[in-house]
């Protein structure tokens, strides 16, 4: 089955490439025609596979009810405790993300994750941006794509571009609820925070202060932001400039808590594949 899926994904990916070379109006949504609704499941399968690779080959397994003889036996052959692979081996997960994005162009999450790693671990900003833009053609209203494009720009110090993307993302945000309302709220906070720093860096202090205050209203524990807004409104100079913070954010490692328990990591890429680089700042 999985083999068949791979075959389909590869064909889809290759036909799509050809279709892109020939700029005809027909972005050849082959996967869609071949698989119909099941492409979601197929794409999700590849995505899972990518996640397993990220964890050194260990897929997510449901909690074990009983510690049986056979489970222990299997455990000796194929241990389930897992590790994260080092950044230099991240590339190995890319084929699966490629297949996931090729089979289900509406799997935005797979595109986000693929773009993130393409830029961060592999240093292929061009490919990351192209991927996000192609996803945007399929999902023009998904704010997460604009948000990721904005972050991509921030990572490369392109603040004007970042501002445009994040503004669009903010405008789209309200129209698109997520399954996870908490994540939804966090996303807006992240967009607004970035926008605040960007506005501040561009000298539009009032608009920056408004952004900070909106975040602080939803997340009262972000007192730092509230204080920064007050400083801006009273004309006080914050201890760190917005540019400094942005540069710091661009360089910072994205630290995350993995939702899996008991594992050791290959290197400092301490993160989970899903929600990579999100939930910040």
């Amino acid at each position, binding site marked *: 089955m999985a083999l068949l899926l791979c075959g389909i994904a590869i064909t889809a990916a290759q036909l799509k490439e050809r279709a892109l070379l020939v700029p005809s109006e027909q972005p050849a949504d082959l996967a869609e025609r071949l698989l119909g609704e099941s492409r979601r499941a197929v794409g999700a399968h590849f995505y899972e596979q990518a996640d397993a*690779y990220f964890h050194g080959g260990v897929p997510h397994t449901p909690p074990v009810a009983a510690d049986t003889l056979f489970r222990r036996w299997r455990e*000796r052959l194929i241990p389930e405790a897992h590790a994260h692979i080092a950044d230099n081996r991240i590339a190995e997960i890319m084929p699966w993300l490629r297949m996931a994005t090729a089979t289900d162009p509406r799997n935005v999450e797979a595109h986000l994750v693929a773009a993130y790693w393409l830029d961060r671990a592999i240093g292929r900003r061009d490919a990351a941006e192209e991927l996000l833009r192609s996803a945007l053609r399929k999902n023009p209203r998904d704010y997460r794509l604009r948000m990721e494009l904005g972050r991509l720009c921030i990572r490369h110090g392109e603040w004007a571009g970042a501002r445009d993307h994040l503004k669009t993302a903010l405008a789209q945000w309200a129209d698109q609820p997520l399954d996870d309302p908490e994540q939804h709220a966090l996303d807006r906070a992240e967009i607004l925070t970035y926008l605040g720093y960007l506005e501040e860096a561009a000298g539009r202090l009032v608009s920056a202060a408004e952004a900070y205050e909106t975040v602080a209203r939803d997340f009262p524990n972000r007192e730092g932001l509230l204080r920064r807004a007050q400083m801006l409104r009273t004309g006080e100079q914050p201890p760190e400039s917005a540019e400094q913070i942005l540069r710091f954010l661009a360089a910072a490692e994205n630290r995350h808590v993995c939702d899996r328990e008991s594992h050791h990591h290959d290197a400092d890429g301490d993160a989970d594949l899903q929600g990579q680089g999100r939930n910040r700042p």
Partner: protein
Amino acid sequence: MRIRTIAHMVWLEAIRRKDVYVLLILLGGLLLALVSLNVFGLSGLVRYVADVGLLGAWLFGWILAVVLGARQLPTEESRGTIFALLAKPVSRAELMIGKWLGAWLAASLALAAFYVLTLAVVWARGGHFDPVTLLQALLLHLALLAVLTALALALSTRWHGDAACAGAFVLSGAAFFVVPQVPMLLPDMGRATGLLLHALYYLMPHLELFDLRRRLVHDWGPAPWDTVALTLFYGALFTAVLLMAAWLAYRNKRFPRSEWQ
């Protein structure tokens, strides 16, 4: 000598039919497609090729083992060749073992070819497998094929070829995918069903034990040899039990005469 001759005939039939070559070509095509997949313009990626290649070897090896095991006795019976064969000083136990051995060896050789093909592509791409882990994975895989051919053969003593084939796929698929999950179902079950499932869990072959692919692909190094040896023994035991069952079912079987079909 008789067992060897019967096995030899199975082998000759297997290599003179096209199935093995078709599967080899399919696997080659799949690997080629994988290698030519454009992954965001990245180069030097190899792990997914190894992974899918081994998956192909698994799938095709499984298919071959079941098909070869299931068709031996039914074709002898439907063609009526069983009569000329059993008119020789060949006992039914010898026939059974010879058929199993031939089917297993043919499936094993095809499997080796699948591995070689995958290895060649992986090596050509600059990847590698740890040789000891590879050996372990291959040994366990061969043991799995032994169980699968014995299962298909046992079912074919009483069922027609197609039914035996389908039955063997369903049973072995269940043993691979479902049986390991049984302990997770147990808490939701009533006492009687729970007990039954428990018995099933321990009596059905645990085919998932023979799958070392993940260890191999992700380079975790060799598994402990004592566990590997134990697993090989487990496979041999199941093969023997299945062959014994097959012999019991076949010992006094009456064959339909071909003219009536």
